[in-house]
């Protein structure tokens, strides 16, 4: 039990640190949101007025206290640039991102696991070379370049999918999947390559173990040995690796969402950063960091469950 307590405390501490760092950093960023709202129509007096009305003139620690107090009491405030409640905005955009993150993970796993197993079974044969090379090539392309290629192929040439935009799943679910497909695929391909490599090396390790030899000796079919026995043992490590990719995915969505004009968390965070909307930067970075850490935590728990050899502590 003390393990959970410790982990929870350390997560909370890290989140607090994150919020402080983000707050400090965003206040060092040149420019402020008042300038962004008024643009090239501003003059010093008008700016001063707007800053006052937005509460930007308070000392930074007061602004921070204000913010953290709001976060804890569930009042996340308004985005300064969009003038919309941050909680609403985050919920909307996080839903959008969740769609592509889940889709890309599904695509990646659905392709990576069979490919990795196939590769491991035919270790050092041509099948292995082919799939390993493909995987290596996959991780060698930037996500946004995958995105560009997908746009060229599926949107521009074939016209099968829209090249951009987001569609609200609440209104029309199938439309929303349709719009999310290309960005999800762009993210999924890079991820797939990575997971294929991981699945392969895990499977290679497991296939070399004693119990596999025993199973084979017992006369079980090769298919049962590989797909039932070996794979069930590989799922733990592979799922762990997949879970740990969430952090990487949240970095990638910034670029990929921008490319596809897909308005999710990545887009929102980038817009907040560009517009110096401090409360919004705070909230979105905080949410991203919290999601990344929670996922890591869950992955650890999962690992604990599937592999009791890991000691607590």
């Amino acid at each position, binding site marked *: 039990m003390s393990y959970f307590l410790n982990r929870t405390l350390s997560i909370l501490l890290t989140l607090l640190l994150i919020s402080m760092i983000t707050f400090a950093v965003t206040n060092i960023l040149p420019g402020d949101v008042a*300038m962004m709202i008024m643009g*090239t129509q501003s003059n010093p007096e008008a700016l001063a007025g707007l800053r006052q009305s937005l509460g930007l003139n308070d000392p930074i620690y007061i602004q921070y206290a204000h913010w953290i107090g709001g976060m804890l009491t569930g009042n996340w405030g308004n985005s300064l640039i969009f003038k919309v409640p941050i909680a609403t905005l985050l919920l909307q955009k996080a839903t959008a991102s969740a769609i592509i993150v889940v889709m890309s993970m599904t695509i990646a796993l659905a392709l990576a696991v069979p490919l990795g197993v196939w590769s491991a079974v035919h270790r050092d044969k041509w099948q292995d070379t082919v799939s390993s090379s493909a995987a290596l090539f996959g991780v060698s392309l930037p996500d946004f370049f995958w995105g560009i290629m997908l746009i060229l192929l599926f949107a521009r040439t074939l016209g099968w999918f829209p090249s951009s935009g987001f569609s609200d799943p609440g209104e029309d679910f199938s439309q929303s999947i349709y719009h999310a497909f290309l960005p999800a695929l762009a993210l999924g391909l890079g991820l797939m390559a990575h997971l294929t490599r991981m699945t392969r090396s895990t499977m290679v390790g497991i296939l070399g173990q004693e119990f596999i030899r025993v199973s084979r000796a017992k006369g079980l079919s090769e298919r049962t040995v590989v797909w039932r026995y070996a794979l069930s043992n590989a799922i733990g490590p592979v799922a762990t690796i997949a879970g740990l990719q969430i952090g990487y995915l949240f970095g990638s969505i910034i670029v990929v969402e921008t490319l596809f004009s897909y308005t999710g968390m990545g887009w929102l965070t980038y817009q907040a950063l560009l517009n110096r909307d401090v409360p919004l930067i705070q909230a979105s970075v905080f949410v991203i960091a919290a999601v990344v850490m929670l996922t890591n935590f869950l992955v650890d728990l999962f690992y604990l469950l599937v592999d009791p050899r890991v000691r607590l502590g």
Partner: protein
Amino acid sequence: MKRRDFLISTAALMGSTAVFTNLTTLSAVAQETPVKGGTLIWGHSETVQNLDMHQTGTASTSRVLQNVHSSIVTVDANLNVIPGLAESFEEAPDGLTYTFKMRPGVKFHNGATMTAADAKYSFERCKDPATGAVNFEVFNNVASMEMPDEMTLVIKMSQVNAPFLARLAENGAGVIMPKDSGDIQGTTPTGAGPFKFVSYEAGNAVTLARFDEYWDGPAYLDGVVAREITEPTVRLTGLRTGELHMINDIPPDRMEEIKGDTTFQTVSWFPLNFDFINMNNDFEPFKNPKVRQAFDMVIDKELLLQGALWGQGKITASPSYPTSSAYNTALVNRPQDIAGAKALLAEAGYAPGALKIVFKATTNYPYHIEAAQILVEWFREAGVELTIEQLTWADWLSQVWTDKDFEMSMMNFFGLWESDFLYYSLYHSTGGFNYRHINDPVIDELVTRARVTVDGTARADIYKQVQQRVFDEALDVVIWFRNGSAAAQTSVGGLDTLVHPNGNALQFHKVWLKA
């Protein structure tokens, strides 16, 4: 070699003539009788932000809100001030009193009927520094606002401010909001315009619906959805697939192709904005007018227009709106003369290689980055080493606009059709937009005098002198007016009414969809 290539190629490309007629060109489409109904899906090129009409200074937001709000007065195509929500207005001969008779029976979107009290409320809100209004200085000289009766507003000035009426014709300052609606304007803009605000989803869309009680007759369209699609190629794709009825801002390199496509109608107009190249007049080399003139001479404006904007604009030496009576038609851009520029620089004491200049351009306007890259090549030939710093909009605003920390830069302005706003703000030594540290006593005297000159013709003459002075001294290098553009399906009617005379706002009051 490269320079010659560059030149030869453009000689062949150039075919544009600079005639300031026919501001809006519309590809031929038969005029039919408008019908009511339908929701127009517009692919909007930019992101809409803070919806409070008083606070926002971004062209993108005003472009949309133009349809939600009405101003007390407005302008016709020749930029003359005409009645808006005031059915008549009167300026006392001494220029110190303005009397507005408000239009009876005007309804706001919240159901209230407009009176002079709403106008008074709106102007006071704009004037109040606590509102953080971008145009609050319009009311600087207002001494009092009185309501002799419910429908009359009398504004008394503490001193003559000749451009006051014209400034009220802008939505930012002259818009009338229902009394006490200030708190909701940022989230639910409410006005007396032809369309009601329905919803806003940050980064995705703004939805508007027809306001049936609009004072100037209801619009044809049931509604307008302004979908925000910032990627130009994506907007085009949306138009091609029929997902969108209309888009604004056709990518300049695709203009000819779209114009030639009969499945679309195109509208192009100018100016959308003017662009100029800025020199920090407080930076040692630029204190010398010879250096500034030499820099002007390095730039081939027509070629730059071809290079950065694919020719979608017209070069100009004056930033005044071409339809404005103050436009000084006598000014002609300095032609490119690299040898002459070198000689001038030598006179000023700068041998080739002596000047190393940082050029700050913003990624907010990608064509500025293109222009900067072309300039680097020319300046290298003139013996000046130009280094580009590519700034995000936030960085540009903070470094160049606010801190005035730059050597050379480039900017554009939308909607500055009013001469006082343009020249006083940009060129007076204390002007709000004077980020180039311009400090020229001649200009200060001229623009101050213009402000108190009530006679329109005399005032226009003063502004012509200002333009001459800006040009002679090369305080900035004014280069071109950029074209605005929009494309639509052939099912869209009334496109000729789309563009507001200010060149930025798009108005959907008279636009309709064929069944």
